[in-house]
């Protein structure tokens, strides 16, 4: 029996998803006997040309982490799509844009200005910004072109399955790998390695009075470690976020930020959280309501920290 | 005088307070000073567009008003006026610009030419209402130095303080001035003609009618035992005061009723000198009145 061929790729992301795989530790070594890793730039020496040389659908499963933020990301996405039987969006970035997608609150121009010109530590008197092409005596040099809008993997190629999380937690990764090895594949489009209920379902914090009379940011308070954070005025994305992670942030007295993405019946995670939160605001007059609403500093960063690219609006107006 | 609070307003005197009705301006400023109402005269103000102008060139009148409002908006304070004509015209412009986008656009375009802009945020208020609503009874009573000893006053509002908008008081039968007069120790008499016509500008065009109207006011005041008439409008004041002799000649009557701005009456109660209040400039002598009613004559 031939071992299934597996590939990993790392697009626009922090690398945490790669670490999540390595976190499998000894189990990864055991896996080595059951699978054949044919492409994994982060851990093994493969060249793009090796990949290009493969026949189409040669890879059984590709775990693709990271969002699509530049032309190289997209090129790899298309290449891996062509070469793989199953393409898995692995981690919040590939699935929903993740943290890189917060770049969608700015234009490419603004990002360049900020990164290469305006930060106090920048010393760039000539105002040079990266060019995708550059002529040298030796010939034309190219680097990938940064996109104005970050996309999810699913927005550029057809994706078979998604695994949410920033990063996906260890036990869930194991389960996902197990699923593929078992050969019993779930229906296409399924979200794997996560629960179909929200974090509230597995969160142990006590829910008593569903009213929010004031909103605070995490640095402004030390929450009671037994009580629901939402009731203490901290915007916790838990109600609108898939469980499966084990509510580990809440265990550390930290609110959920939504990395496991929306629930199965939900179209837009941020809108749903906004609606739920607004519904339980404890205010009756317009002025107090306005004050409470204004208390959500940076609503995009709050409601769409991981899901901006996958949201309905995807980015800000430019 | 210890002032607990200072109230800041922009002040629009209007044309007549610079000329014929200086005494109104003087007494208003003196009273405001005493009450902690800080009136900052609007920089570079112009005609409000009232009187015949708005009837003939309505758009231009609104533009004149809007320019004043645009200047006032920069100050971020309510705009206080004392002349009810100015009040009405400025308020009309405010209302119409808010309700009529076409007018708003036209005026905005014109204002832009002089790099002005009006967003519609200025509240135009009459001094009488400011004193009653912002200062209030206790603060006023605390400043009384000279008892008016139930001076019988006919409270005369004229036509424009409450009309057409009725924002300050009942359109037809206001009582706000009655209230203020009571606070300063005067006794407002029954004066059912309080919002009837003073003749206005008819005095120039149809004097017979205008004199008759003035007579009705004087007669009603006298019948009800008023010793003087309190006014809040420069034009009312002039018609009642300057034409009293003409009325007497025309109708064979003998009215000699002193006419005082409401600010002058407050000023008297506050103990200001007649000079400060511009009272010696009047045509119908009021000296006897003061001798009878004031403890200290200055």
């Amino acid at each position, binding site marked *: 029996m031939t071992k299934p061929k597996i590939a990993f790729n790392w697009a626009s992301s922090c690398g945490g998803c790669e670490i999540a795989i390595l976190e499998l530790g000894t189990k990864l070594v055991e896996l080595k006997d059951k699978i054949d890793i044919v492409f994994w730039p982060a851990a093994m020496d493969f060249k793009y040309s090796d990949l290009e040389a493969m026949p189409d659908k040669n890879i059984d499963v590709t775990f693709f982490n990271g969002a699509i933020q530049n032309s190289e990301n997209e090129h790899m996405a298309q290449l891996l799509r062509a070469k793989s039987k199953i393409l898995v969006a692995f981690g919040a970035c590939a699935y929903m844009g993740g943290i890189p997608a917060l770049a969608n609150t700015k234009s490419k121009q603004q990002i360049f200005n900020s990164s290469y010109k305006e930060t106090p530590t920048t010393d760039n008197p000539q105002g040079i910004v990266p060019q995708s092409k550059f002529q040298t005596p030796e010939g034309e040099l190219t680097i990938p072109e940064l996109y104005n809008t970050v996309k999810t993997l699913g927005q550029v190629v057809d994706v078979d399955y998604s695994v949410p999380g920033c990063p996906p937690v260890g036990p869930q990764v194991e389960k996902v790998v197990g699923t593929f090895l078992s050969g019993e594949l779930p229906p296409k489009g399924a979200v794997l390695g996560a629960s179909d209920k929200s974090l509230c379902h597995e969160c142990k914090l006590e829910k008593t009075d569903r009213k929010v009379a004031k909103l605070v940011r995490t640095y402004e308070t030390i929450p009671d470690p037994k009580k629901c954070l939402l009731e203490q005025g901290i915007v916790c994305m838990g109600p609108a976020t898939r469980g499966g992670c084990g509510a580990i942030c809440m265990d550390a007295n930290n609110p959920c930020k939504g990395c496991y993405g929306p629930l199965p019946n939900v179209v837009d995670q941020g809108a*749903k959280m906004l609606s739920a939160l607004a519904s339980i605001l404890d205010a009756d007059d317009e002025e107090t*309501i306005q004050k409470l609403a204004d208390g959500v500093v940076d609503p995009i960063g709050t409601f769409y920290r991981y899901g901006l690219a996958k949201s309905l609006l995807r980015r800000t107006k430019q | 005088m210890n002032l607990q609070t200072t109230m800041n307003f922009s002040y629009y005197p209007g044309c007549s307070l610079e000329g014929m009705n200086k005494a109104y301006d003087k007494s208003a400023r003196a009273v405001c000073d005493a009450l902690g109402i800080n009136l900052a005269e609007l920089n570079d103000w112009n005609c409000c567009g009232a009187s015949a102008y708005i009837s003939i060139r309505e758009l231009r009148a609104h533009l004149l008003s809007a320019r004043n409002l645009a200047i006032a908006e920069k100050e971020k304070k309510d705009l206080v006026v004392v002349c009810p004509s100015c009040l009405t015209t400025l308020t009309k412009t405010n209302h119409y610009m808010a309700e009529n986008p076409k007018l708003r656009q036209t005026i905005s375009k014109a204002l832009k030419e002089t790099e002005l802009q009006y967003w519609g945020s200025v509240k135009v208020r009459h001094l009488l209402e400011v004193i009653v609503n912002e200062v209030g009874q206790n603060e006023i009573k605390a400043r009384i130095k000279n008892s008016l000893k139930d001076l019988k006053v006919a409270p005369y509002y004229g036509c424009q303080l409450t009309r057409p908008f009725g924002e300050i008081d009942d359109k037809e039968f206001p009582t706000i001035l009655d209230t203020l007069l009571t606070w300063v120790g005067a006794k407002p008499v029954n004066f059912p003609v309080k919002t009837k016509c003073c003749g206005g500008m008819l005095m120039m065009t149809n004097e017979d009618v205008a004199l008759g109207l003035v007579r009705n006011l004087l007669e009603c005041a006298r019948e009800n035992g008023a010793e003087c008439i309190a006014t809040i409008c420069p034009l009312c004041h002039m018609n009642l005061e300057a034409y009293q002799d003409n009325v007497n000649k025309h109708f064979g009557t003998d009215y000699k009723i002193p006419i005082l701005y409401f600010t002058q009456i407050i000023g008297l109660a506050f103990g200001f000198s007649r000079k400060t209040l511009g009272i010696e400039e009047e045509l119908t002598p009021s000296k006897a009145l003061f001798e009878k009613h004031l403890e200290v004559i200055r």
Partner: protein
Amino acid sequence: MTERFEPRIVGFLCKWCAYTGADLAGTSRMKYPPNINPIRVNCSGRVDPTLVLKAFASGADGVLIAGCHPGDCHYTNGNMKTIKRFKLLQHLLDEFGIEKERVRLEWVSASEGERYASVVRSMTEEIRNLGPLNWKRNMEVIA
């Protein structure tokens, strides 16, 4: 000659007040720009913010939510939930760069046909001045 921009507004109208008020405007033959596509819901409280985002994402230039006046809600206080969601939503849309004029919450009673007409008139006018939103294209700009 450039063609006049005709904004596309999606209106979520509660069936007790706003929808009936909008019907009344029609029955009374009041005229207002035919730029609004009404969607009937039982209560403005049914308007999930998702629906508003969906409208913008699908190409709407403006969204109107209209319900019963505060205190007059047929379902006691559904409209109070609406105003809370609306304020927070408006705050969010502001960060997305969608102008405040493009999303409105208005109270229109069943008898306020004229009010409904004037709301649509002024909203259409304001959005016409702002120009098209064209969110689909906004999302597609890559370079």
